[in-house]
Protein backbone atom coordinates (compact mmCIF):
# COMPACT_ATOMS: atom_id res chain seq x y z
CA UNK A 1 0.00 0.00 0.00
CA UNK A 2 1.44 3.34 -1.03
CA UNK A 3 2.07 6.12 1.45
CA UNK A 4 -0.74 8.17 -0.02
CA UNK A 5 -3.27 5.37 0.23
CA UNK A 6 -2.15 4.76 3.78
CA UNK A 7 -2.75 8.41 4.57
CA UNK A 8 -6.25 8.15 3.11
CA UNK A 9 -7.00 5.08 5.21
CA UNK A 10 -5.82 6.74 8.39
CA UNK A 11 -7.64 10.02 7.83
CA UNK A 12 -10.75 8.08 6.82
CA UNK A 13 -10.86 6.05 9.98
CA UNK A 14 -10.09 9.03 12.20
CA UNK A 15 -12.95 10.90 10.56
CA UNK A 16 -15.20 7.88 11.12
CA UNK A 17 -14.26 7.77 14.81
CA UNK A 18 -14.97 11.48 15.08
CA UNK A 19 -18.42 11.09 13.54
CA UNK A 20 -19.20 8.03 15.64
CA UNK A 21 -18.11 9.93 18.74
CA UNK A 22 -20.48 12.79 17.95
CA UNK A 23 -23.32 10.35 17.38
CA UNK A 24 -22.41 8.59 20.60
CA UNK A 25 -22.54 11.85 22.54
CA UNK A 26 -25.93 12.75 21.09
CA UNK A 27 -27.66 9.39 21.53
CA UNK A 28 -29.05 8.14 24.79
CA UNK A 29 -32.17 7.52 26.80
CA UNK A 30 -31.83 10.94 28.39
CA UNK A 31 -32.57 13.37 25.61
CA UNK A 32 -30.08 16.09 24.96
CA UNK A 33 -30.40 17.87 21.64
CA UNK A 34 -27.46 19.05 19.57
CA UNK A 35 -28.58 22.60 20.27
CA UNK A 36 -28.49 21.93 23.99
CA UNK A 37 -25.02 20.46 23.70
CA UNK A 38 -23.89 23.58 21.91
CA UNK A 39 -25.43 25.71 24.63
CA UNK A 40 -23.72 23.65 27.30
CA UNK A 41 -20.38 23.95 25.56
CA UNK A 42 -20.85 27.70 25.25
CA UNK A 43 -21.54 27.86 28.96
CA UNK A 44 -25.12 29.00 28.53
CA UNK A 45 -26.69 29.06 32.01
CA UNK A 46 -30.19 28.36 30.67
CA UNK A 47 -29.63 24.66 30.12
CA UNK A 48 -30.88 22.36 32.83
CA UNK A 49 -28.29 21.29 35.35
CA UNK A 50 -29.23 17.66 34.80
CA UNK A 51 -28.53 17.83 31.06
CA UNK A 52 -25.13 19.27 31.80
CA UNK A 53 -24.47 16.54 34.34
CA UNK A 54 -25.61 13.78 32.06
CA UNK A 55 -23.40 15.11 29.30
CA UNK A 56 -20.26 15.51 31.39
CA UNK A 57 -20.64 12.67 33.89
CA UNK A 58 -22.09 10.01 31.64
CA UNK A 59 -22.26 10.71 27.93
CA UNK A 60 -18.83 12.14 27.20
CA UNK A 61 -16.96 9.77 29.55
CA UNK A 62 -18.82 6.87 28.01
CA UNK A 63 -17.79 7.94 24.54
CA UNK A 64 -14.21 8.52 25.63
CA UNK A 65 -14.18 5.14 27.35
CA UNK A 66 -15.50 3.51 24.18
CA UNK A 67 -12.62 4.97 22.20
CA UNK A 68 -10.07 4.09 24.87
CA UNK A 69 -11.41 0.58 25.28
CA UNK A 70 -11.38 -0.17 21.57
CA UNK A 71 -8.00 1.43 21.05
CA UNK A 72 -6.47 -0.31 24.03
CA UNK A 73 -7.81 -3.74 23.15
CA UNK A 74 -7.02 -3.37 19.45
CA UNK A 75 -3.49 -2.16 20.09
CA UNK A 76 -2.74 -4.72 22.78
CA UNK A 77 -4.23 -7.48 20.65
CA UNK A 78 -1.95 -6.47 17.79
CA UNK A 79 1.07 -6.44 20.09
CA UNK A 80 0.21 -9.90 21.41
CA UNK A 81 -0.21 -11.26 17.91
CA UNK A 82 3.14 -9.87 16.85
CA UNK A 83 5.20 -10.95 19.81
CA UNK A 84 3.63 -14.37 20.12
CA UNK A 85 3.72 -14.82 16.34
CA UNK A 86 0.31 -16.33 16.68
CA UNK A 87 -2.69 -15.00 14.76
CA UNK A 88 -4.94 -16.25 17.55
CA UNK A 89 -3.02 -14.52 20.31
CA UNK A 90 -5.26 -12.31 22.37
CA UNK A 91 -5.33 -11.42 26.03
CA UNK A 92 -6.88 -14.85 26.57
CA UNK A 93 -3.98 -16.79 25.13
CA UNK A 94 -1.37 -15.70 27.59
CA UNK A 95 -3.76 -15.81 30.47
CA UNK A 96 -4.14 -12.07 31.06
CA UNK A 97 -7.90 -12.07 30.68
CA UNK A 98 -8.17 -15.17 32.84
CA UNK A 99 -5.98 -13.66 35.50
CA UNK A 100 -7.76 -10.33 35.40
CA UNK A 101 -11.08 -12.12 35.60
CA UNK A 102 -9.89 -14.09 38.61
CA UNK A 103 -8.58 -10.96 40.27
CA UNK A 104 -11.90 -9.25 39.78
CA UNK A 105 -13.81 -12.26 41.09
CA UNK A 106 -11.58 -12.44 44.16
CA UNK A 107 -12.12 -8.76 44.80
CA UNK A 108 -15.88 -9.23 44.53
CA UNK A 109 -15.91 -12.14 46.96
CA UNK A 110 -13.29 -11.12 49.49
CA UNK A 111 -14.06 -7.43 49.86
CA UNK A 112 -17.68 -7.41 50.85
CA UNK A 113 -18.36 -3.91 49.59
CA UNK A 114 -16.04 -4.06 46.60
CA UNK A 115 -16.98 -1.15 44.42
CA UNK A 116 -15.78 -0.73 40.89
CA UNK A 117 -12.40 0.37 42.19
CA UNK A 118 -11.87 -2.70 44.28
CA UNK A 119 -12.71 -4.78 41.25
CA UNK A 120 -10.43 -2.64 39.11
CA UNK A 121 -7.55 -3.15 41.48
CA UNK A 122 -8.27 -6.86 41.56
CA UNK A 123 -8.25 -7.17 37.81
CA UNK A 124 -5.00 -5.22 37.56
CA UNK A 125 -3.34 -7.41 40.12
CA UNK A 126 -4.79 -10.55 38.56
CA UNK A 127 -3.61 -9.63 35.08
CA UNK A 128 -0.11 -8.81 36.27
CA UNK A 129 0.03 -11.91 38.40
CA UNK A 130 -0.99 -13.99 35.40
CA UNK A 131 1.83 -12.52 33.32
CA UNK A 132 4.22 -13.04 36.21
CA UNK A 133 3.14 -16.69 36.54
CA UNK A 134 3.55 -17.20 32.81
CA UNK A 135 7.08 -15.79 33.02
CA UNK A 136 7.82 -17.98 36.02
CA UNK A 137 6.52 -21.08 34.29
CA UNK A 138 8.59 -20.28 31.23
CA UNK A 139 11.64 -19.83 33.37
CA UNK A 140 10.94 -23.05 35.27
CA UNK A 141 10.71 -25.08 32.09
CA UNK A 142 13.87 -23.44 30.78
CA UNK A 143 12.42 -23.28 27.28
CA UNK A 144 12.03 -19.74 26.08
CA UNK A 145 10.11 -20.50 22.96
CA UNK A 146 6.82 -18.91 21.99
CA UNK A 147 5.05 -22.23 22.37
CA UNK A 148 6.05 -22.32 26.03
CA UNK A 149 4.45 -18.92 26.58
CA UNK A 150 1.24 -20.01 24.95
CA UNK A 151 1.22 -23.26 26.93
CA UNK A 152 1.91 -21.40 30.15
CA UNK A 153 -0.95 -19.07 29.24
CA UNK A 154 -3.26 -22.03 28.80
CA UNK A 155 -2.19 -23.36 32.19
CA UNK A 156 -2.84 -20.01 33.86
CA UNK A 157 -6.20 -19.73 32.15
CA UNK A 158 -7.21 -23.20 33.24
CA UNK A 159 -6.18 -22.54 36.83
CA UNK A 160 -8.00 -19.23 37.00
CA UNK A 161 -11.12 -20.75 35.40
CA UNK A 162 -11.12 -23.50 38.01
CA UNK A 163 -10.71 -21.06 40.86
CA UNK A 164 -13.43 -18.82 39.45
CA UNK A 165 -15.75 -21.80 39.14
CA UNK A 166 -15.07 -22.58 42.79
CA UNK A 167 -15.68 -18.97 43.79
CA UNK A 168 -18.90 -18.90 41.82
CA UNK A 169 -20.04 -22.07 43.49
CA UNK A 170 -19.65 -20.53 46.91
CA UNK A 171 -20.68 -17.04 45.88
CA UNK A 172 -23.83 -15.42 47.12
CA UNK A 173 -26.10 -15.55 44.07
CA UNK A 174 -27.96 -12.33 44.75
CA UNK A 175 -24.95 -10.10 44.98
CA UNK A 176 -21.52 -11.54 44.35
CA UNK A 177 -22.49 -13.93 41.59
CA UNK A 178 -24.43 -11.20 39.89
CA UNK A 179 -21.43 -8.90 40.11
CA UNK A 180 -19.14 -11.55 38.66
CA UNK A 181 -21.45 -12.23 35.79
CA UNK A 182 -21.93 -8.57 35.16
CA UNK A 183 -18.20 -8.21 34.95
CA UNK A 184 -17.87 -11.08 32.52
CA UNK A 185 -20.59 -9.65 30.33
CA UNK A 186 -19.04 -6.25 29.76
CA UNK A 187 -20.76 -2.90 29.34
CA UNK A 188 -19.92 0.75 29.00
CA UNK A 189 -23.16 1.61 30.76
CA UNK A 190 -21.60 2.27 34.11
CA UNK A 191 -18.82 4.56 32.94
CA UNK A 192 -18.52 7.84 34.75
CA UNK A 193 -16.08 10.71 34.47
CA UNK A 194 -14.35 9.86 37.72
CA UNK A 195 -13.79 6.25 36.68
CA UNK A 196 -12.33 7.26 33.34
CA UNK A 197 -10.06 9.77 35.03
CA UNK A 198 -8.88 7.17 37.52
CA UNK A 199 -7.68 4.71 34.89
CA UNK A 200 -6.55 7.28 32.33
CA UNK A 201 -3.02 7.62 33.75
CA UNK A 202 -2.49 3.86 33.61
CA UNK A 203 -3.92 3.70 30.14
CA UNK A 204 -1.67 6.50 28.93
CA UNK A 205 1.43 4.94 30.50
CA UNK A 206 0.67 1.69 28.71
CA UNK A 207 -0.09 3.43 25.44
CA UNK A 208 2.95 5.70 25.51
CA UNK A 209 5.21 2.82 26.49
CA UNK A 210 4.04 0.66 23.62
CA UNK A 211 4.37 3.49 21.13
CA UNK A 212 7.88 4.30 22.33
CA UNK A 213 8.89 0.65 22.13
CA UNK A 214 7.30 0.12 18.73
CA UNK A 215 10.60 -0.71 17.02
CA UNK A 216 11.25 -3.47 19.53
CA UNK A 217 7.73 -4.82 19.12
CA UNK A 218 8.16 -4.86 15.36
CA UNK A 219 11.41 -6.77 15.73
CA UNK A 220 9.78 -9.37 17.92
CA UNK A 221 8.03 -10.69 14.84
CA UNK A 222 11.41 -12.37 14.28
CA UNK A 223 12.36 -15.63 15.95
CA UNK A 224 13.76 -15.43 19.45
CA UNK A 225 17.32 -16.24 18.37
CA UNK A 226 17.24 -13.78 15.53
CA UNK A 227 16.11 -11.06 17.92
CA UNK A 228 18.97 -11.83 20.25
CA UNK A 229 21.45 -11.97 17.41
CA UNK A 230 20.34 -8.48 16.45
CA UNK A 231 21.16 -7.31 19.94
CA UNK A 232 17.78 -7.29 21.62
CA UNK A 233 17.72 -8.06 25.33
CA UNK A 234 14.80 -10.31 24.74
CA UNK A 235 14.01 -11.31 28.32
CA UNK A 236 13.70 -7.77 29.62
CA UNK A 237 12.16 -6.25 26.52
CA UNK A 238 9.52 -8.94 26.25
CA UNK A 239 8.66 -8.61 29.94
CA UNK A 240 8.32 -4.84 29.69
CA UNK A 241 6.18 -5.02 26.57
CA UNK A 242 3.93 -7.64 28.11
CA UNK A 243 3.54 -5.59 31.27
CA UNK A 244 2.70 -2.47 29.29
CA UNK A 245 0.10 -4.21 27.17
CA UNK A 246 -1.36 -5.83 30.28
CA UNK A 247 -1.59 -2.42 31.86
CA UNK A 248 -3.47 -1.23 28.82
CA UNK A 249 -5.86 -4.18 28.82
CA UNK A 250 -6.45 -4.12 32.57
CA UNK A 251 -7.07 -0.36 32.55
CA UNK A 252 -9.79 -0.93 30.00
CA UNK A 253 -11.49 -4.06 31.24
CA UNK A 254 -11.60 -3.09 34.87
CA UNK A 255 -14.17 -0.47 33.88
CA UNK A 256 -15.92 -2.10 30.97
CA UNK A 257 -15.74 -5.75 31.92
CA UNK A 258 -14.68 -8.21 29.26
CA UNK A 259 -15.38 -7.02 25.73
CA UNK A 260 -14.86 -9.98 23.48
CA UNK A 261 -13.47 -10.24 20.00
CA UNK A 262 -12.07 -6.72 19.55
CA UNK A 263 -8.54 -7.70 20.54
CA UNK A 264 -8.67 -10.55 18.07
CA UNK A 265 -10.23 -9.04 14.97
CA UNK A 266 -8.95 -5.47 14.98
CA UNK A 267 -5.35 -6.55 14.27
CA UNK A 268 -6.49 -8.90 11.52
CA UNK A 269 -8.58 -6.26 9.80
CA UNK A 270 -5.75 -3.79 10.15
CA UNK A 271 -3.25 -6.19 8.58
CA UNK A 272 -5.64 -7.02 5.77
CA UNK A 273 -6.12 -3.34 4.97
CA UNK A 274 -2.49 -2.27 5.14
CA UNK A 275 -1.03 -5.58 3.95
CA UNK A 276 1.73 -4.84 6.44
CA UNK A 277 2.55 -5.89 9.95
CA UNK A 278 4.41 -2.96 11.41
CA UNK A 279 3.95 0.06 13.64
CA UNK A 280 1.29 1.50 11.37
CA UNK A 281 -0.61 -1.76 11.62
CA UNK A 282 -0.56 -1.47 15.41
CA UNK A 283 -1.92 2.06 15.32
CA UNK A 284 -4.56 1.24 12.73
CA UNK A 285 -5.55 -1.79 14.78
CA UNK A 286 -6.15 0.50 17.76
CA UNK A 287 -8.22 2.87 15.63
CA UNK A 288 -10.27 0.02 14.20
CA UNK A 289 -10.86 -1.29 17.70
CA UNK A 290 -12.06 2.17 18.71
CA UNK A 291 -14.56 2.46 15.87
CA UNK A 292 -15.86 -1.08 16.44
CA UNK A 293 -16.44 -0.50 20.16
CA UNK A 294 -17.95 2.94 19.61
CA UNK A 295 -20.42 1.67 17.01
CA UNK A 296 -21.20 -1.38 19.15
CA UNK A 297 -21.91 0.82 22.14
CA UNK A 298 -24.14 3.20 20.18
CA UNK A 299 -26.12 0.22 18.94
CA UNK A 300 -26.12 -1.43 22.37
CA UNK A 301 -28.04 1.45 23.86
CA UNK A 302 -30.30 2.29 20.96
CA UNK A 303 -31.38 -1.03 19.42
CA UNK A 304 -33.62 -2.19 22.21
CA UNK A 305 -35.51 -0.71 25.13
CA UNK A 306 -32.93 -2.13 27.53
CA UNK A 307 -29.20 -2.01 26.97
CA UNK A 308 -27.69 -5.01 25.25
CA UNK A 309 -24.37 -6.54 26.33
CA UNK A 310 -21.69 -4.90 24.21
CA UNK A 311 -19.87 -8.13 23.41
CA UNK A 312 -22.82 -9.30 21.33
CA UNK A 313 -22.51 -6.21 19.18
CA UNK A 314 -18.73 -6.11 18.89
CA UNK A 315 -19.01 -9.62 17.51
CA UNK A 316 -21.90 -8.73 15.24
CA UNK A 317 -20.01 -5.73 13.84
CA UNK A 318 -16.57 -7.25 13.83
CA UNK A 319 -17.30 -10.51 12.06
CA UNK A 320 -18.75 -9.03 8.85
CA UNK A 321 -15.84 -6.59 8.71
CA UNK A 322 -13.38 -9.44 9.05
CA UNK A 323 -15.20 -11.56 6.47
CA UNK A 324 -15.34 -8.65 4.05
CA UNK A 325 -11.63 -7.99 4.24
CA UNK A 326 -10.84 -11.70 4.06
CA UNK A 327 -12.85 -11.93 0.84
CA UNK A 328 -11.13 -8.83 -0.51
CA UNK A 329 -7.82 -10.47 0.20
CA UNK A 330 -8.93 -13.68 -1.45
CA UNK A 331 -9.79 -11.77 -4.59
CA UNK A 332 -6.62 -9.71 -4.51
CA UNK A 333 -3.21 -10.94 -3.65
CA UNK A 334 -2.21 -12.63 -0.45
CA UNK A 335 -0.49 -10.63 2.25
Amino acid at each position, binding site marked *: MSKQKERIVFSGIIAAIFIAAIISVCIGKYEISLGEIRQILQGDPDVSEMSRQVLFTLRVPRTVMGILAGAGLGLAGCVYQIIF*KNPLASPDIIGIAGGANLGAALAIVSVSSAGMFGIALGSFAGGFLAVFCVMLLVKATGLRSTATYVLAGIVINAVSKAVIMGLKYFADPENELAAMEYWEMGTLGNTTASKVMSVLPMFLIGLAGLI*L*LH*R*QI*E*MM*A*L*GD*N*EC*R*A*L*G*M*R*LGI*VRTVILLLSTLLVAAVICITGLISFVGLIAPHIS*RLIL*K*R*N*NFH*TMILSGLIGAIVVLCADVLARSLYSAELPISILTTVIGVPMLVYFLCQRGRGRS*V
Partner: protein
Amino acid sequence: MKAKFEVRDICVKYGERRILDHVGLEIFEGEFCGLLGLNGSGKTTLLHAICGFIPMQGGCFVNGTDCGKLTERKRAREVALIPQTCSLEGGRTALEVVLMGYNAWLHILESPSREHREKALDIMDKLGCRGLADKDFGQLSLGQRQMVILARCMVQDTPVMLMDEPDSALDFLNKHIVLQKIRNVIQNEGKMGLITMHDPNFAMKYCDRLFLLKDGAILTQIDMRKDPECKIKRDLSTVYGRIELLKNGKEYLMVRGEDA
Protein backbone atom coordinates in the same frame (compact mmCIF):
# COMPACT_ATOMS: atom_id res chain seq x y z
CA MET B 1 47.60 -5.91 14.31
CA LYS B 2 45.38 -8.15 12.28
CA ALA B 3 41.87 -8.67 13.61
CA LYS B 4 41.27 -12.09 15.06
CA PHE B 5 38.25 -14.12 16.07
CA GLU B 6 39.01 -16.95 18.40
CA VAL B 7 36.86 -19.73 19.76
CA ARG B 8 38.51 -21.31 22.77
CA ASP B 9 37.61 -24.65 24.19
CA ILE B 10 33.84 -24.52 23.86
CA CYS B 11 31.91 -27.33 25.52
CA VAL B 12 28.12 -27.68 25.34
CA LYS B 13 26.05 -30.29 27.10
CA TYR B 14 22.38 -31.08 26.78
CA GLY B 15 21.78 -32.97 29.99
CA GLU B 16 24.38 -35.72 30.02
CA ARG B 17 24.89 -35.62 26.28
CA ARG B 18 27.97 -33.75 25.15
CA ILE B 19 27.20 -31.88 21.96
CA LEU B 20 30.42 -29.90 21.64
CA ASP B 21 33.67 -31.19 23.04
CA HIS B 22 36.44 -28.66 23.52
CA VAL B 23 36.00 -26.92 20.21
CA GLY B 24 38.53 -24.27 19.33
CA LEU B 25 39.27 -22.34 16.16
CA GLU B 26 40.74 -19.08 14.95
CA ILE B 27 39.73 -16.88 12.07
CA PHE B 28 41.64 -13.85 10.80
CA GLU B 29 40.63 -10.65 9.08
CA GLY B 30 39.24 -11.18 5.59
CA GLU B 31 39.02 -14.90 5.98
CA PHE B 32 35.91 -16.82 4.97
CA CYS B 33 35.88 -20.15 6.78
CA GLY B 34 33.55 -23.08 6.39
CA LEU B 35 32.32 -25.48 9.02
CA LEU B 36 31.62 -28.88 7.50
CA GLY B 37 30.05 -31.88 9.10
CA LEU B 38 27.24 -34.34 8.84
CA ASN B 39 23.85 -33.78 10.44
CA GLY B 40 24.10 -33.77 14.20
CA SER B 41 27.80 -33.08 14.25
CA GLY B 42 27.21 -29.87 16.20
CA LYS B 43 27.63 -27.20 13.51
CA THR B 44 24.56 -25.15 14.39
CA THR B 45 25.12 -25.68 18.11
CA LEU B 46 28.55 -24.13 17.76
CA LEU B 47 27.14 -21.03 16.07
CA HIS B 48 24.40 -20.74 18.69
CA ALA B 49 26.91 -21.13 21.49
CA ILE B 50 29.03 -18.34 20.03
CA CYS B 51 25.94 -16.11 19.80
CA GLY B 52 25.11 -16.85 23.42
CA PHE B 53 21.77 -18.54 22.77
CA ILE B 54 22.70 -21.60 24.80
CA PRO B 55 24.78 -22.01 27.93
CA MET B 56 28.33 -23.17 27.31
CA GLN B 57 31.75 -23.51 28.81
CA GLY B 58 34.71 -21.86 27.15
CA GLY B 59 34.86 -18.55 25.43
CA CYS B 60 34.95 -16.73 22.14
CA PHE B 61 37.01 -13.65 21.67
CA VAL B 62 36.74 -10.93 19.09
CA ASN B 63 40.01 -9.02 19.08
CA GLY B 64 40.50 -10.12 22.66
CA THR B 65 37.01 -9.20 23.94
CA ASP B 66 35.18 -12.11 25.52
CA CYS B 67 31.77 -12.21 23.84
CA GLY B 68 30.38 -14.50 26.51
CA LYS B 69 30.64 -11.67 29.03
CA LEU B 70 28.84 -9.11 26.88
CA THR B 71 25.15 -8.24 26.89
CA GLU B 72 23.12 -9.19 23.84
CA ARG B 73 23.33 -5.61 22.69
CA LYS B 74 27.12 -5.34 22.95
CA ARG B 75 27.61 -8.79 21.50
CA ALA B 76 25.49 -7.89 18.50
CA ARG B 77 28.04 -5.20 17.73
CA GLU B 78 30.75 -7.86 17.47
CA VAL B 79 28.99 -10.88 16.01
CA ALA B 80 26.19 -11.05 13.45
CA LEU B 81 24.25 -14.12 12.43
CA ILE B 82 22.59 -15.01 9.14
CA PRO B 83 20.04 -17.71 9.85
CA GLN B 84 19.13 -20.57 7.56
CA THR B 85 15.95 -18.73 6.66
CA CYS B 86 14.66 -15.55 8.17
CA SER B 87 11.85 -16.28 10.62
CA LEU B 88 9.87 -13.27 9.44
CA GLU B 89 6.76 -14.20 7.55
CA GLY B 90 6.20 -10.93 5.79
CA GLY B 91 4.28 -7.81 6.49
CA ARG B 92 7.45 -5.69 6.37
CA THR B 93 9.23 -4.09 3.46
CA ALA B 94 12.71 -5.34 2.67
CA LEU B 95 14.06 -1.96 3.74
CA GLU B 96 12.39 -2.29 7.14
CA VAL B 97 14.03 -5.68 7.54
CA VAL B 98 17.43 -4.27 6.62
CA LEU B 99 17.00 -1.41 9.07
CA MET B 100 16.56 -3.93 11.89
CA GLY B 101 20.31 -4.41 11.60
CA TYR B 102 20.80 -1.04 13.30
CA ASN B 103 19.14 -2.26 16.46
CA ALA B 104 22.37 -2.87 18.35
CA TRP B 105 23.55 0.65 17.56
CA LEU B 106 20.36 2.53 18.34
CA HIS B 107 19.02 3.54 21.71
CA ILE B 108 16.11 1.31 22.66
CA LEU B 109 13.53 4.05 22.03
CA GLU B 110 15.33 5.53 19.02
CA SER B 111 14.18 5.08 15.44
CA PRO B 112 16.54 4.81 12.45
CA SER B 113 17.28 8.27 11.04
CA ARG B 114 17.29 9.45 7.44
CA GLU B 115 21.06 8.83 7.30
CA HIS B 116 20.56 5.27 8.47
CA ARG B 117 18.03 4.81 5.74
CA GLU B 118 20.36 6.23 3.09
CA LYS B 119 23.17 4.01 4.25
CA ALA B 120 20.96 0.94 4.26
CA LEU B 121 19.86 1.71 0.71
CA ASP B 122 23.50 2.15 -0.31
CA ILE B 123 24.31 -1.27 1.07
CA MET B 124 21.34 -2.79 -0.73
CA ASP B 125 22.56 -1.06 -3.85
CA LYS B 126 25.99 -2.64 -3.42
CA LEU B 127 24.41 -6.06 -3.13
CA GLY B 128 22.20 -5.36 -6.11
CA CYS B 129 18.91 -5.59 -4.23
CA ARG B 130 17.98 -1.94 -3.92
CA GLY B 131 15.03 -2.52 -6.20
CA LEU B 132 13.49 -4.74 -3.53
CA ALA B 133 13.54 -2.05 -0.85
CA ASP B 134 9.82 -1.28 -0.91
CA LYS B 135 8.64 -4.82 -1.67
CA ASP B 136 7.04 -6.95 1.01
CA PHE B 137 9.61 -9.27 2.50
CA GLY B 138 7.12 -12.14 2.42
CA GLN B 139 6.73 -11.82 -1.34
CA LEU B 140 10.42 -12.11 -2.14
CA SER B 141 12.00 -15.28 -3.43
CA LEU B 142 14.19 -17.18 -1.00
CA GLY B 143 17.31 -15.99 -2.81
CA GLN B 144 16.17 -12.38 -2.61
CA ARG B 145 15.38 -12.82 1.06
CA GLN B 146 18.86 -14.09 1.85
CA MET B 147 20.25 -11.10 -0.02
CA VAL B 148 18.17 -8.79 2.15
CA ILE B 149 19.32 -10.61 5.27
CA LEU B 150 22.91 -10.26 4.07
CA ALA B 151 22.28 -6.56 3.72
CA ARG B 152 20.89 -6.48 7.26
CA CYS B 153 23.99 -8.29 8.45
CA MET B 154 26.18 -5.67 6.77
CA VAL B 155 24.12 -2.89 8.33
CA GLN B 156 24.79 -4.50 11.69
CA ASP B 157 28.42 -3.80 10.84
CA THR B 158 30.16 -6.42 12.97
CA PRO B 159 33.70 -7.73 12.54
CA VAL B 160 32.45 -11.32 12.75
CA MET B 161 29.76 -12.80 10.51
CA LEU B 162 28.30 -16.18 11.34
CA MET B 163 26.15 -17.95 8.79
CA ASP B 164 24.01 -20.99 9.42
CA GLU B 165 23.55 -22.76 6.10
CA PRO B 166 22.36 -19.57 4.40
CA ASP B 167 22.32 -21.40 1.06
CA SER B 168 20.34 -24.45 2.07
CA ALA B 169 16.99 -23.26 0.71
CA LEU B 170 18.42 -21.85 -2.49
CA ASP B 171 18.64 -23.25 -5.99
CA PHE B 172 21.95 -23.92 -7.71
CA LEU B 173 22.32 -20.50 -9.30
CA ASN B 174 21.20 -18.58 -6.24
CA LYS B 175 23.62 -20.54 -4.07
CA HIS B 176 26.47 -19.35 -6.24
CA ILE B 177 25.23 -15.79 -6.34
CA VAL B 178 24.66 -15.53 -2.60
CA LEU B 179 27.90 -17.24 -1.61
CA GLN B 180 29.88 -15.10 -4.02
CA LYS B 181 28.35 -11.95 -2.54
CA ILE B 182 29.12 -13.11 0.98
CA ARG B 183 32.71 -13.90 0.03
CA ASN B 184 33.13 -10.49 -1.61
CA VAL B 185 31.77 -8.71 1.42
CA ILE B 186 34.08 -10.56 3.78
CA GLN B 187 37.13 -9.99 1.66
CA ASN B 188 36.43 -6.39 0.76
CA GLU B 189 35.39 -5.25 4.20
CA GLY B 190 37.99 -7.27 6.04
CA LYS B 191 35.44 -9.21 8.11
CA MET B 192 35.80 -12.64 9.60
CA GLY B 193 33.26 -15.12 8.30
CA LEU B 194 32.28 -18.54 9.59
CA ILE B 195 29.72 -20.47 7.57
CA THR B 196 28.19 -23.86 8.11
CA MET B 197 27.43 -25.79 4.94
CA HIS B 198 26.29 -29.15 3.75
CA ASP B 199 27.80 -29.19 0.30
CA PRO B 200 31.61 -29.56 0.43
CA ASN B 201 31.87 -28.55 -3.23
CA PHE B 202 30.48 -25.09 -2.55
CA ALA B 203 32.57 -24.92 0.59
CA MET B 204 35.73 -25.77 -1.31
CA LYS B 205 34.94 -23.26 -4.00
CA TYR B 206 34.18 -20.25 -1.78
CA CYS B 207 35.88 -20.78 1.56
CA ASP B 208 39.47 -20.06 2.46
CA ARG B 209 39.62 -22.65 5.18
CA LEU B 210 37.40 -25.53 6.21
CA PHE B 211 36.88 -26.94 9.70
CA LEU B 212 35.70 -30.52 9.74
CA LEU B 213 33.40 -31.26 12.63
CA LYS B 214 32.50 -34.77 13.76
CA ASP B 215 30.69 -35.77 16.95
CA GLY B 216 31.12 -32.36 18.47
CA ALA B 217 34.82 -32.05 17.95
CA ILE B 218 36.94 -30.48 15.22
CA LEU B 219 38.86 -33.31 13.61
CA THR B 220 41.02 -31.29 11.33
CA GLN B 221 41.13 -28.21 9.18
CA ILE B 222 41.89 -27.71 5.52
CA ASP B 223 43.44 -24.59 4.08
CA MET B 224 42.13 -24.46 0.54
CA ARG B 225 44.74 -21.90 -0.38
CA LYS B 226 47.73 -24.12 0.20
CA ASP B 227 46.91 -27.67 1.27
CA PRO B 228 47.73 -30.35 -1.30
CA GLU B 229 45.05 -32.50 -2.91
CA CYS B 230 45.98 -35.61 -0.94
CA LYS B 231 45.50 -33.86 2.41
CA ILE B 232 42.18 -32.43 1.31
CA LYS B 233 41.00 -35.85 0.17
CA ARG B 234 42.21 -37.58 3.30
CA ASP B 235 40.62 -35.01 5.61
CA LEU B 236 37.31 -34.96 3.80
CA SER B 237 37.08 -38.72 3.88
CA THR B 238 37.34 -38.68 7.69
CA VAL B 239 33.92 -37.10 7.63
CA TYR B 240 32.36 -38.27 4.42
CA GLY B 241 33.82 -41.78 4.13
CA ARG B 242 34.86 -43.12 0.76
CA ILE B 243 35.12 -40.21 -1.66
CA GLU B 244 36.86 -39.23 -4.88
CA LEU B 245 38.26 -35.78 -5.51
CA LEU B 246 38.11 -34.48 -9.09
CA LYS B 247 40.03 -31.50 -10.26
CA ASN B 248 38.57 -28.93 -12.58
CA GLY B 249 41.10 -26.21 -13.28
CA LYS B 250 41.96 -24.81 -9.87
CA GLU B 251 38.81 -26.11 -8.24
CA TYR B 252 38.15 -29.41 -6.56
CA LEU B 253 35.00 -31.41 -6.86
CA MET B 254 34.06 -34.14 -4.41
CA VAL B 255 32.02 -37.15 -5.46
CA ARG B 256 31.08 -40.28 -3.58
CA GLY B 257 33.51 -43.08 -4.22
CA GLU B 258 32.59 -46.45 -5.65
CA ASP B 259 31.89 -49.07 -3.03
CA ALA B 260 34.71 -51.50 -2.81
